[in-house]
């Protein structure tokens, strides 16, 4: 019994100690604390990272040759570590002049040698995002010739053919364009891996923040780079904690233990909007939701049926109900904030118009359709809404719900009728989406171009493919934007794709946080302009 008594006393003491502990209510003025889901980070190497949370971290740790200014993303790319550049007459060679006086976190100067090393390294490592660079004709074999050092502060890149300068530059703003400290990285090279293994968990950048540590699925910590060439950031430390639950993120935000909550659900956002000491920051992200209609299906191959189905989608109804606060109606394949974006919304839910079109197409009595959908809540709800609204025009829909692997296999094999899909752009240039939604120059089964969405839907579009290819080469930025606008309008008119929504990201924040920019659809979050 004495043991029991002692244990009870110890337990009481522990409880008292706990309650006597001072619980801080606010984060310090020079520290930014963020709750976010960061379990998608698998590597911190810019040549390999291809995830959202990883892009956030890398954008703040690495400088790039050209970059988006968080103060005004609509300006497009501008100089970063490259101070200026010139384009050769044939449009194939771009010569970069590096910004003098910039240092890496190690203290090493940022030179053209580092830029050449970084780009060659990304091509040679050939990791998942390498296609962003290799699409310009760079390869493991030719990287040394195509990406060439001229002098300490100058280097050039030569593409295999003429591409729009804006296309090349936009691609260099993506994560893979991060410039690494060649000296630091090569010190940690192992078995010819160009420091890939080391950079997975360490950093060698020149950006606004220095990586202190990354604990997978737990947190990462950054400290301000006092020598950042744009001036030392006001937030001396940034801590991002992995918090899965929206309710938990909200609780931490309300208590003042965090400054930003990045993954709040619509209910929690509504609650936060009512609090005077909190605010909500809305941003449009790159992900779009669409349905696509396989042109191998005899009914769906009829242009009037395709159009009728676009009128049988209750865009606004879905936006205002189960997608509220998460998606916004958007009917073009380029997300808003991309070069060449349009905001035309030619379709709305109109059963009478759809019925008339179906009658003209010779299927007035409707027909049967199968929709393949992945077992994700929002996609299933969209499919159910389609089942209901298509039914109003006599189209009997059955849903085939499957895992990501199963559904994607059917889609890639071109065996679906209708597919409910989501698409996220791979890099911040319009070609990332145009090249898949509006490009399919060869529709034969043998070619198996399953990476192209137009191909997956057996939509042969030789003329539009030519226009897409031409837009990639147009040197004038405004003309190029106009070309994409025209392609999208034609796409809206006749493509077997009904683009429906664009993702909205809502971030809950303490009202005293100023200068936040989560990057829109084209880039990632910037911590350095933030003040409190």
């Amino acid at each position, binding site marked *: 019994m004495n043991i029991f008594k002692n244990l009870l006393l110890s337990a009481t003491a522990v409880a008292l100690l706990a309650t006597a502990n001072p619980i801080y209510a606010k984060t310090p003025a020079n520290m930014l604390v963020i709750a976010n889901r960061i379990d998608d980070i698998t590597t911190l190497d810019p040549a390999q990272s*291809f995830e959202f949370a990883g892009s956030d971290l890398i954008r703040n740790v690495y400088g790039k040759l050209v970059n988006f200014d968080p103060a005004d993303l609509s300006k497009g790319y501008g100089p970063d570590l490259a101070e200026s550049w010139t384009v050769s007459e044939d449009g194939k060679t771009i010569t970069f002049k590096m910004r003098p006086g910039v240092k890496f976190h190690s203290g090493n100067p940022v030179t053209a040698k580092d830029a050449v090393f970084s780009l060659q390294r990304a091509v040679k490592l050939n990791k998942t995002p390498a296609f962003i660079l290799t699409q310009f004709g760079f390869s493991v074999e030719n990287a040394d010739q195509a990406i060439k050092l001229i002098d300490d502060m100058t280097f050039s890149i030569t593409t295999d053919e003429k591409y729009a300068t804006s296309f090349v530059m936009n691609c260099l703003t993506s994560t893979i364009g991060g410039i690494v400290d060649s000296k630091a990285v090569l010190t940690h090279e192992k078995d010819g891996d160009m420091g890939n293994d080391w950079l997975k968990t360490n950093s060698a950048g020149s950006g606004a923040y220095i990586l202190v540590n990354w604990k997978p699925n737990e947190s990462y910590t950054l400290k301000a780079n006092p020598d950042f060439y744009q001036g030392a950031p006001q937030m001396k430390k940034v801590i991002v904690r992995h918090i899965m639950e929206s309710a938990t993120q909200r609780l931490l935000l309300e208590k003042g233990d965090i400054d930003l909550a990045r993954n709040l659900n619509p209910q929690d956002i509504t609650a936060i909007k009512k609090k005077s000491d909190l605010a909500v920051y809305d941003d449009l992200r790159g992900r779009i939701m669409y349905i696509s209609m396989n042109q191998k299906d005899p009914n769906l191959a009829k242009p009037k049926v395709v159009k009728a189905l676009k009128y049988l989608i209750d865009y606004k109804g879905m936006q205002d109900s189960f997608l509220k606060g998460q998606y916004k109606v958007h009917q073009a394949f380029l997300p808003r904030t991309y070069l060449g974006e349009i905001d035309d919304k030619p379709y709305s839910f109109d059963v009478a118009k759809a019925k008339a079109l179906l009658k003209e197409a010779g299927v007035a009595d409707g027909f049967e359709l199968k929709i393949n959908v992945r077992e994700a809540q929002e996609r299933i709800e969209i499919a159910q809404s389609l089942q209901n609204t298509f039914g109003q025009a006599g189209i009997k829909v059955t849903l085939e719900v499957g895992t990501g692997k199963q559904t994607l296999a059917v889609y890639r094999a071109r065996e679906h009728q209708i597919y409910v899909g989501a698409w996220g752009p791979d890099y911040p240039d319009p070609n990332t989406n145009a090249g898949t939604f509006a490009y399919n120059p060869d529709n034969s089964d043998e070619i198996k171009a399953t990476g192209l969405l137009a191909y997956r839907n057996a939509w042969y579009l030789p003329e539009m493919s030519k226009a897409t290819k031409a837009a990639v080469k147009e040197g004038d930025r405004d003309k190029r934007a106009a070309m994409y606008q025209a392609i999208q309008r034609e796409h809206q008119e006749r493509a077997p794709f009904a683009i429906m929504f664009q993702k909205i990201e809502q971030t809950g924040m303490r009202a005293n946080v100023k200068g936040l920019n989560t990057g829109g659809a084209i880039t990632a979050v910037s911590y350095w302009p933030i003040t409190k």
Partner: protein
Amino acid sequence: MAIENRSGNKRRRASIPPWLRGIGSTLFTVLITMVGLLFVTFIIGRVMPIDPVLAIVGESASRATYDAAYQELGLDKPLLVQFFIFLLDIAQGNFGESLLTARPVSQDLLRVFPATFELATVGTFFGVLLGVPLGVFAAVKRGSWLDHIARVVALIGYSMPVFWIGLIGLLVFYGKLGWIGGPGRLDIFYVDMVPTITGMILVDSLLMGDMDIFRNAISHIVLPAALLAYYSLAYISRMTRSFMLEQLDQEYIVTAQVKGLSANAVIWRHAFGNVKVPLVTVIALSYAALLEGSVLTETIFSWPGIGSYITTALLSADMNAVLGGTVVVGLVFVCLNIFSDLLYKFFDPRAK
């Protein structure tokens, strides 16, 4: 020759001391159990509809990139060959690299397991501390209000969803009253201030002699541990009550009472003395269940333990991490079984 051999074998076997034979047989059982466990997990990992290749290369990868990753993972080899390669790697302590964390799985497990171990140990400690006396008193005062309370407590413990009760607890004690720390193992201010010695922050902060961090760690562990303790208490008190009732109805208890022994001596020395043995199994099972990692508790409290590690890995088709985590969980069960066997011998004179 055959007879000579046979007799020779017999002599050798007879010369092996019983304790060594005992250890040998235990190790053999552990080995068979672990190989069986690994085989089942491995097969489930291969047949489940998650594509580990797609998890690496992404949806928009070309066929060539997909095929290259497929071969790199060794998925083109026959299933049995893959399993044997996997076993050989495990035997060398190599669980491979996690897709999600880009680090060796063994390193990840060393990071996440102490977090779960710390939480489960504190939870079980309080579960036993309160659950055993509650069960004993409920049995002794059978039918009284105390018994009813104990049964209601156990019932609630079984039926309340942990997700709900955890969030409510956070809302009240952290959100409204501010008595405890929020989710996570420490306040943000202390992050990165504790060097990893054992991986258990309570222990490491004490070893450092930093009482501020120790207190802060307590303020964070108190609620999730209380939650686990409650679930553990519900199970332990119910089982203790049932074991005690069985003993209290035995004739030797009546004899002891007739002999004039005090109530305390009858309950604690005689009845409880016989309950200790089966109770060890109950406590070991309860502890093992918590050590497996309470996924929901870890998720709500952002506790980076083994439960959430394995779940995240499973959902992301990170099979090296899933298999590594399963080995650890399997080992935990095996070790606790061996430990409870040893305790049997300690508590039960017949087993000696």
